């Protein structure tokens, strides 16, 4: 499972795992019914205390993204991916916007500049959708 831990932005590690698994499920890089790595495996991969994985999986289970099956492992919930609450989705995006605006402020871009740049980037991305699916998947990661 492709998860990256970043220790410089102050987000708790279990929260980073929760957010990234939700993203992987929402973008169908993890499919319904697909098995997640066992706690020990993911802890060894990410070099984090196993209890952090327990906490992250617990929260993902509570929010219905994954399910534990007795004795067999942890799986992405079947059926349509649970819509993440609007409040939660806004929170994730707003954090990104805040740091973007802070950077922009430091580099002397106005918020109008930023809005224009976002539209330009989006247009560039839309042009690339003609590329083969495999390549696109790599790019948007």
């Amino acid at each position, binding site marked *: 499972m492709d998860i990256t*831990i970043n*220790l*410089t*932005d*102050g*987000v*708790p*590690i*279990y929260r980073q795992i929760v957010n990234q698994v939700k993203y992987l499920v929402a973008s169908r890089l993890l499919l319904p019914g697909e098995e997640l790595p066992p*706690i*020990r495996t993911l*802890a*060894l991969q*990410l*070099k*984090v*205390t*196993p*209890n*952090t994985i327990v906490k992250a999986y617990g929260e993902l289970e509570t929010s219905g993204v994954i399910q534990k099956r007795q004795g067999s492992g942890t799986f992405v919930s079947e059926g349509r991916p649970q819509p993440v609450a609007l409040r939660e989705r806004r929170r994730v995006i707003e954090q990104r916007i*805040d*740091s973007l605006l*802070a950077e922009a*402020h*430091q580099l002397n871009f106005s918020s109008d500049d930023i809005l224009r740049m976002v539209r330009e980037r989006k247009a560039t991305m839309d042009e690339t959708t003609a590329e083969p699916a495999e390549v696109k998947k790599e790019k948007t990661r």
Partner: protein
Amino acid sequence: MEQSVVDVKELSRWFGGKNALDRVSFRATAGQVYGLVGANGAGKTTLLKHLLGLLRATTGSVRVFGLDPVRDPVGVLSRVGYLSEERELPEWMRVDELMRYTQAYHPTWDASYAHELLETFALDPAKKIKDLSKGMRAQAGLIAAVAYRPELLILDEPSSGLDAVVRRDILDAIVRAVADDGRTVIFSSHLLDEVERMSDHVTMIQNGRVTLSGVLDDVRRDYQRSRVRFAEHFNQPPILDTALLLEGSGRTWSVIHSGSLENFRASVLARGGEVVESRDATLEEIFLARAGRNNQQVEAA
């Protein structure tokens, strides 16, 4: 109440006229990882040596598995794995002799685990301890500390002076001790990113005193790092409420602060500034902020 694996109460230790530990309390419960941080000489090793019964408390009490490690060293040490900072090992032994020697004291020795680690580390069993490199010594010491699957694993600066590969081996051993057996791990480290990754709880020791202790995520929530911009230039760091560490120059400052963000914003506003960005502080930032530097001593960059 949950059974404590380690329970240290009001431990003080004097070396001659020096107060090495000053009323230190520390508790560890099963299945959790505890990270000890603090400057060299702050008292981390002294605390760990008390847990092993190598030092006797001047005042206060130390209990490991409910036992006093000074009065019942066998009862305690048979259940504890220890990797010392100096990696003291019998120099004259070969690696395989060290394994057999350790096994003799520990009926729970897991020979297949020991063998697996020897293979993973590519350690030559016929090599003498005194001929091992620093990294190999750490690996040999680690096998001797973990292969009998102790209930409590104590690692004193396990990563000190080691390259990235051996550091990874040590982190793997911590993960396995906790994930496979629900063991308890206490480790000290000056590598704060390692502590941040590997610890469920963090304890900061400064000048023999515990200055910060708790669940890592809770501790982190109490501190924030904000970027602040002022209307006027400051040649000296501006005085701000709840600020612990300021770095920067002129109009732009980066501040580590504790307590509520609202209070901090108000105090920035009162000095004619605005908070541009805030986020939870990293352990490294908290450590620097708490390391005793006050904001007037920080030089403008």
